[in-house]
């Protein structure tokens, strides 16, 4: 129990620290939310009215304390760019990024891990060499580039999917799947490549250990050793990497959502930063920090499932 309390405190502290850094950063960098919203054609009076309305003229400590007070009552504040509650904007975008992340994670685990095992099994024979060559290339290609190429081939030449034509799941499930498929693949590609390598290395490491030698010398066949014993033991480092990948996908989706014009959290964050919409940025920072903590927590649970010797308390 103590562990959870400690984790909770660490989480609250981290989030507060991150928010404070974001606050200070926005104080230091040039740019003004009222100016960004109104543009070059605003009259001075319009600018003054909006600045007053957004509370930009208030001193720093007052704005900070206002935000924290709101946070304590569960209110993330109102977006300066859109004049809409920050939580509405974020919740509206969650389905897009979440579906993208889930789809990408599925590709990564369902394609990456099996290929990694195959590659380990055939080590230095043709299939193994082929897979590690391809995965090398996959890791080298940035996802925004593969995104553009995929979009060009499947969207413009073949016209199987339509770029920029996102439809929500509730309106048209097939359409939503089609619009998310390519970006999910683009995000997944580099991670598939790296998970192949991790799986391969992890499995090959295990293959060298004594218990494998013993099992093989006892006369067990290769496949049953591999799938019954080796795989389970190799999974721990792979799960750790998968957790890091899951967190990275959030970052990757920022770029990919721009490329595919998907109305997800990544695009919202970019918009919020470029228009100096501090409340929205703060809200998203909170949300992202929260997601990362949840992912770490889930990974801890998965560890205990795979290896009962690991108890939650035992790890830092």
């Amino acid at each position, binding site marked *: 129990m103590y562990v959870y309390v400690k984790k909770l405190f660490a989480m609250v502290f981290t989030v507060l620290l991150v928010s404070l850094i974001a606050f200070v950063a926005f104080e230091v960098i040039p740019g003004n939310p009222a100016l*960004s919203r109104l*543009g070059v054609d605003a009259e001075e009076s319009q600018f003054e009215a909006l600045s007053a309305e957004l509370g930009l003229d208030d001193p720093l400590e007052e704005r900070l304390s206002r935000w924290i007070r709101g946070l304590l009552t569960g209110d993330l504040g109102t977006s300066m760019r859109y004049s809409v509650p920050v939580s509405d904007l974020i919740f509206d975008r969650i389905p897009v990024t979440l579906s993208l992340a889930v789809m990408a994670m599925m590709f990564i685990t369902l394609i990456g891990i099996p290929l990694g095992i195959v590659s380990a099994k055939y080590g230095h024979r043709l299939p193994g060499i082929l897979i590690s060559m391809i995965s090398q290339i996959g890791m080298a290609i940035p996802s925004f580039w593969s995104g553009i190429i995929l979009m060009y081939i499947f969207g413009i030449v073949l016209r199987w999917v339509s770029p920029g034509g996102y439809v929500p799941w509730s309106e048209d499930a097939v359409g939503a799947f089609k619009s998310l498929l390519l970006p999910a693949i683009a995000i997944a590609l580099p991670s598939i490549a790296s998970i192949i390598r991790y799986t391969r290395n992890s499995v090959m490491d295990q293959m060298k250990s004594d218990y494998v030698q013993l099992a093989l010398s006892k006369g067990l066949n290769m496949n049953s050793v591999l799938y019954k014993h080796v795989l389970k033991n190799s999974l721990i480092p792979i799960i750790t990497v998968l957790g890091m990948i899951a967190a990275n996908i959030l970052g990757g989706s920022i770029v990919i959502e721009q490329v595919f014009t998907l109305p997800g959290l990544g695009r919202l964050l970019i918009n919020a930063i470029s228009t100096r919409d501090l409340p929205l940025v703060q809200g998203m920072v909170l949300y992202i920090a929260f997601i990362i903590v949840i992912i770490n927590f889930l990974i801890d649970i998965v560890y205990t499932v795979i290896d009962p010797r690991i108890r939650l308390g035992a790890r830092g």
Partner: protein
Amino acid sequence: MRKILVIITLFFITVTSLLSQKIVVAVMQDPDFLDPHRAAASGTYEMMFNVFEGLLKPDSNGSVVPAVAEDYHISDDGLTYTFTLRSGVKFHNGSEVTVDDVLYSLKRLKGNNQERGLSSDFEKFVSKIEAVDEKTIKVELNTLNTDFLEKFIIAIIPANNDNHELNPIGTGPFKFVKYQPGQRLVIEKFDEYWNPELPIVDEVEFRIIPDNQAAIMSFMAGEVQILPRLDAIQAMVLGNRFNLITAEQNMVQLMAMNHAVSPFDDIRVRRAINHAVDKDEIIEIVAGGYGTKLGSNMSPIMSRYYLEGLEDYYETSLVRSRQLLSEAGYLDGFKTKITVPSNYQFHIDTAQIIVEQLKRVGIEAEIELVEWSVWLDKVYTSREYELTIIGLTGKLSAYDILRRYISDYPRNFYNYFNSEYDRVVKMAIERTDIEEKASLFKQAQRILTEDAAAVYIMDPNFIVALAPDLFGYKVYPLYVQDMSTLYYR
């Protein structure tokens, strides 16, 4: 029997989906406010032009024509404007436009003792707004401003709407349906529009795509039917498979020189730079030839007020440029910085060419790319820059274009101060005689050129790409997309 029903239903669905015509337009940015009296951004006007109308509205020639008003009359002294309302004009909520709605709208702009008005022009110039009878409105000005007629294009909105921001209601050819921040703004055909022939299509979606490359992809894939504001290079990428319309727009692309910063406080240096910059080369390379050379802060599309012949006032001459620099004490040139907003590739390209051109006379300029919000803050508002390149979108009124250089104008980011100029521009809007007024506006342009207030580069052509089956697109000398005349064939 059931089969037949199914077939009939299916047929009906197909027919209605064919008949219901929709256009998707790619736009770069979100609206700032949906309330038309609070909106300032031209990106907002671009869309909401289809939803709102004033007593008058702009037409594609750049003049104003009656809209909610059927007719107007200006008194001989130029101080009283009388509008007669068009009968049968309806708001999108179904109620008819009354004289009270017009009073409400104009008074909201002017403000009163308790509350500030939403338009500083109405606040400053209007002294009295009154209804003469059920069809007539009279507006009196306190000072003569013969460019004030154009102000009446501002929206007439219903007095009984309690939230103009969330539920914008106007009298335009399209009514507002929904706005999803960062995604789309949707409008649909208003069946009771006072001009029964318009609009033609049923629905228009403005899809917000800030990334140029993504917008082009969407257009090529047929997701988007109208792709406005392309530059020449993007137009080349699209090739001739699409319908491209090219027209002059009312924009002035210029390189501003901060007059408060040395050495740009020296007129000889500013002139030297004007002699060094080869505008033809810029137009050829950056705009692929699709641009009109300028010499002052006015586009030729403002034909009534445009002064011809200034574009070659400073002929490109390295000798002349070096001579002026040496007179100013910069025989060996100097180092400077061009601050360019990073979201405008067109201006970045221009800056790169200017850097090369300035090198020829010994001026070492480096390019500093800044975010748009940084540009607005540092350059446009705080005036902390040396050189910058920007395009200013045109207005209907020449005064609104030229007042950017008036000494006490809050956004005079050139730091240009010339009392003679202030006087000439102020005199121009006090002239009721159109010839006199035009000659004063022309004089103002000449002063800007002679003072080398900035390097006036070009009015880049407006290039729009349309889906091959879309027709009826009208180009305006304003930042608008008129959706009412479009139709599919």
